[in-house]
């Protein structure tokens, strides 16, 4: 972490040196693995209302998808003091109760009865501001980026750290 401490995380410098490190490992990174790591970081840099911040940290996701598999590989990790737990569901993940995060696909129909309280809805693709998600993962070229919809976030009651907001591509 020294590089980051020494240099201000200027947008131009930082990706360069980090790309080098990752490059030197010649790693082949699968999209779902990277997106799962993104979602884990969303959890780290978001705070939930007190009444929703107890018990295991449940991540709900469509069953059988590569993303579900990658999220499951994170089991054993912790978010604050809460255990990361993946709940795969055949129904709409947003309708599964007690999810801290619900991951939907870009093709999911827009929720008609508003956002689910205290659930951070993350959409894999789609258009932020239109898909009803709080955070939207976007593929741009061979990079993954994310957009944050603050209005949806407010209705959900979650709060983001300044760092998360700073790293987002769009904050609307």
């Amino acid at each position, binding site marked *: 972490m020294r590089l980051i401490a020494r240099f201000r995380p200027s947008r131009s410098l930082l990706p*360069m040196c980090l790309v080098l490190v990752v490059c030197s490992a010649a*790693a082949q*990174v699968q999209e779902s693995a990277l997106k799962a790591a993104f979602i884990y*970081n969303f959890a780290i840099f978001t705070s939930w209302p007190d009444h929703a911040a107890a018990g295991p940290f449940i991540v709900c996701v469509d069953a059988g998808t590569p993303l579900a598999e*990658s999220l499951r590989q994170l089991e054993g990790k912790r978010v604050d003091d809460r255990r990361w737990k993946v709940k795969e569901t055949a129904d709409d993940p947003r309708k599964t109760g007690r999810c801290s995060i619900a991951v939907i696909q870009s093709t999911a129909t827009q929720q008609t009865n508003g956002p689910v309280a205290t659930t951070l809805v993350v959409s894999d*693709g789609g258009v932020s501001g239109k898909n009803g998600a709080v955070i939207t993962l976007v593929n741009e070229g061979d990079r*993954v980026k994310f957009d944050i919809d603050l209005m949806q976030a407010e209705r959900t009651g979650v709060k983001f750290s300044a760092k998360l907001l700073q790293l987002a591509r769009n*904050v609307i």
Partner: protein
Amino acid sequence: MADAGALPDEPNSADLAALPFEALLAVPVVTSASRFAQSIADAPSAVVVLTAADIRDFGWRTLGDALASLPGTYVSYDRNYAYLGARGFLRPGDYDSRFLLLIDGYPTNDAVYGQAAIGTEMAIDMDLVERIEYVPGPGSAVYGSSAFFGVVNVITKNGSAVEGAQTSVALGSFGEKKARATYGWHGQNGADVLLSATSFVRNGQSLYFPEFHMPGESDGVARGLDYDRSQQFLAKGSFGGLTITAVHSNRTKGVPNASFGAVFGMPDSTTDTQSFVNASYEQPLSKDVNLAAQAYWGRWDYRGEGFYPLGDNPSALNVDGAHALWYGIGTHATIKSLTAQTIVIGAEFQRNARRDQYNYWLDPYVSALDDHHSSNRSAVYVEDEIQLPANFVLNAGLRHDRDSITGGNLNPRLALIYKATPRDSIKLIYGTAYRAPNAYEMYYAIPGDQGQEANPRLHSEHITTREVVFEHRLGATGRATMSLYQYTLRNVISQLTDPDTGALVFANVDHAAAKGAEWAIDNEFGHGWRLRASYSWQLAKDRATGATLDNSPRHLAKLNLVTPLFWQAARLGTELQCTSARKAGDSVAGGYCLANLTLSSSRLAPRTDVALSLYNAFNKRYSDPAGPAFVAPTVYQQSRTVYAKMTYGF
């Protein structure tokens, strides 16, 4: 940073989650070629999407290179323009006017020839293309005229895809050089800017044409006439729901093969200058209603200069040209308030302010044609996608176009989609389309017995198609498709000789029919392997004579394979395309197989992409049918070329 350095070859999510968040933003992923697989399953067509990753991995330099990789398509080149054919239809000599080419929704087909520019004459650099959506089949029920065999929608990159300054330089065989400078910026409020300029030149080669070899007079070699030069500029800005794109391009191509009766070996060239400004706006009106609006202005100036025999003068300079200028507005609403229905209602208006053509001899100045026309067209359309019980989806579209010259056209389309299983869908599609005669066909007139007559009474040509598509999803993103189709064309505009005057004239005389089958597969095999392959069998015939159409191959086989090399440090893009023999008038263009190889890497040096391409790797000699403007029945195509490219991001 120790964590990152110790990343395994194929890190899982837990390895990645241990990295600082900033680092994740810079990690490249193995991109999926068919990310739109899900929505494609619902589309009322066998849609194919090509991405920037495909363009990079296969080293496609023109839109035609990309489109030639699609199932059932083929591209012909006459060493001046490139033409797209599909499902056995690509009549030599016609302009490329039976596909609608949209760039970010702007209709690029010009108001004089209706031409879709897919060769080096295209207005934008392929490096700036984010994706290409190809919708095969008639699209007039949504898009109106020109969407005859298909719609090609090119979506350009945003500034956020570039982020900062980027330069690209390339060198290739026969004096090919290209340089591009691009700047992209993206703000967190969604504001986005992309600026880009490209300069391209290709000296070309000396080409031997046996048909012009006359001992004592000419050795049949065209020297210094195969050059190709272009400049392309693009500026794009978005904020909120508004996106404004401005494009300007200019291309000059030498014509080495003395088409249209030019004097062989003399300077001959065509210059195409295109500009457009397109503004599009999207705004959700309510939770269930989305409004989109568009306004555009475009022009396309064409100028051809060449030497032709005139009376006693064996070679006089003639200038042939056109000014096309058009602007329009369009709006559509997408309504999802009814249960299980998505309705799109739209209206469009386009003014073709200039559809002007001219032709003159320079010295002494004699005007042979100075024609000025304009026209308007307006349209209303509606499309409804209805989710029916038992996994059926009905997609119905209807559009009415009114052209101030050629009158009204009503085009329906109906598709019934049955999702037999979550992985299998069957689509039954009935479609119609039309193409209004272009200004060239209606008004171009040159006096003389070798001349051409106008025919302002031309009306639209029509197509009706029936198609069944079986789609099976493979894994997370792949799919296998089989398609059976039957096309019927009526009143196709063709050139014939007026028996009274001996001059050429266009008339609605031809009727044709085609049937065919296509098999296609598109899949990823982990570790960065990606495969797209297709085979098409097609039979297109003239309904009056029963003869097979010119430039209509019976078989097309294609393979596009991406192979990771050196532990993912590089990629090899292998492209194979086989085309069976095609009739070319009384002659035949022989069948051939072509191989293109592109080796590329983003990891050789930081922030640098390098690529080395070998086009026509086995130096296959092959030809495309040429059309009536050429002395020879076929045009010899490009021999093996090498191309090296480097892109650096600051």
